[in-house]
């Protein structure tokens, strides 16, 4: 999937998605991210979703982020949202979910916390 970039960096895997995180695309992203998380993760301690270029987030996108965070936490890994765009922040705030996620401005922050 062109809009999803996967970057392995230090102890983290970064999923950078550009565009609208909505119902139309969510199954495809879910399959790709889940496959990487379940099969490719070994020593990585953090999974980071770079949402700086997400232009729209609907309820399916919110559902994806929530369930992904729970799944990652269940694997004893940390989950972070990196530089979420204003649209993402506003949407998560509107439904009282902004504090559900750990938001970081720099991927290095995830390592400090670990």
């Amino acid at each position: 999937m062109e809009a999803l970039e996967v970057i392995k960096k230090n102890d983290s895997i970064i999923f950078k998605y550009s565009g609208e995180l909505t119902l139309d695309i969510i199954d495809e992203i879910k399959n790709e991210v889940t496959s990487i998380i379940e099969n490719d993760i070994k020593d990585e301690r953090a999974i980071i979703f770079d949402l700086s270029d997400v232009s729209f987030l609907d309820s399916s996108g919110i559902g994806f982020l929530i369930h992904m965070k729970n799944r990652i936490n269940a694997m004893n890994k940390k989950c972070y949202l990196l530089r979420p765009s204003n649209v993402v922040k506003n949407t998560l705030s509107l439904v009282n979910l902004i504090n559900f996620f750990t938001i970081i401005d720099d991927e290095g922050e995830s390592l400090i916390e670990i």
Partner: protein
Amino acid sequence: MKVFREICIICLCDDELIINAIKEIFSDHVVNIEICHTIEEFFTKYFQKRPDIIIFNIEENQNLNEVNPIEIINHIRNQLNDFNVYIMVLLPSNLVALRESLMNLSPDDIILKPLSSERLFHFHLNMAKRRVQLIKQLSYAYERISREIDFAINIQQKLLPKYPLETEDLVIDFFYEPSGRGSGDYFDFFYIDKHLVRVIIADVSGHGSKAAALMVIVSALFKSSKMLKLELGKLVQLINNELIDIIQGDFDIVTLFVLDIDTLKKEIKYINAGHCPGVLIDKNKSIKLIKPNSTVLGVVKQDFSVDSFSYNNFEGILLVTDGYYEWEFDNDSIWGFENFLNTVKEILSSEKKFLLDMLENYIKNTCELPPIFRDDRTALWIEFSKY
């Protein structure tokens, strides 16, 4: 698997070899072979019979003004958009230019002549036979599934209130517009006691049959609270626990705003579980947002705290699902909650009283191009002081 035994084939030739091969290959079918010699004749038969297979047998010196396969195939594929009919063309191998033109028009099979053996034509006819059977089975399955979905949607629609509620104490009006087949939006209201009205608006992520099925579960549990007289916190906990069991492994969520309106005490108790804020309008036409006091449902087990307020000084409360403000605005941008709120404010400043119809009209007048709604849209307007 259902097997379809009736088949119609239009041949643009009367070559005995071809007709006999068809009869042999389709000997286990009731086969209707129509033979045509002109374009007019062909299209008359085409519209009458809706054939499964069309066979052209082009001769080397054929007058293409009488039967021009390019013209016919182009019309079928690009004008009539019929991609189901199987088109087979037998063509002399030296007519290279015609072959090139034909290949651009997506016939299903081009067989070059002279044929090396009769069996080769039988092989091609068998391929056509299998493809026709698959197309028929697919269409049949699609129609069956469509009927099932329509049946489920019909049930889903029956779960929603048909009429607004209008009493001396309260008016509850609604607007509901599903985005397609199967909606994830749900709303309902009913008296659970003499002076107590329970109202719900909920939104399952996504739409289609999966969202509709989850919506039906929320509805069933919500309706049961009437009989069981469950208090709000327990009701939402019950819905949440059931959803967690059902959703597990999938990525769905449900947002929900549920209120108990006590018309005697003029008090509202509510839980807003990750739903977009309710818009509370006071008698001076200013607004206050009722933001979520708990998180979305279907994710983690949790307790739900119930908040309350007196609505003595308020005119009403507007509840919507996110489809009401997450729609495509001019130039591909999303309209958004801020614009939605501004529109509500605009109505309040220019109209005597708030009505749902006004919201629709104002939204449609907001943008130059007609709005493109992506999601189901539901709005509830609860008016406290009509009388």
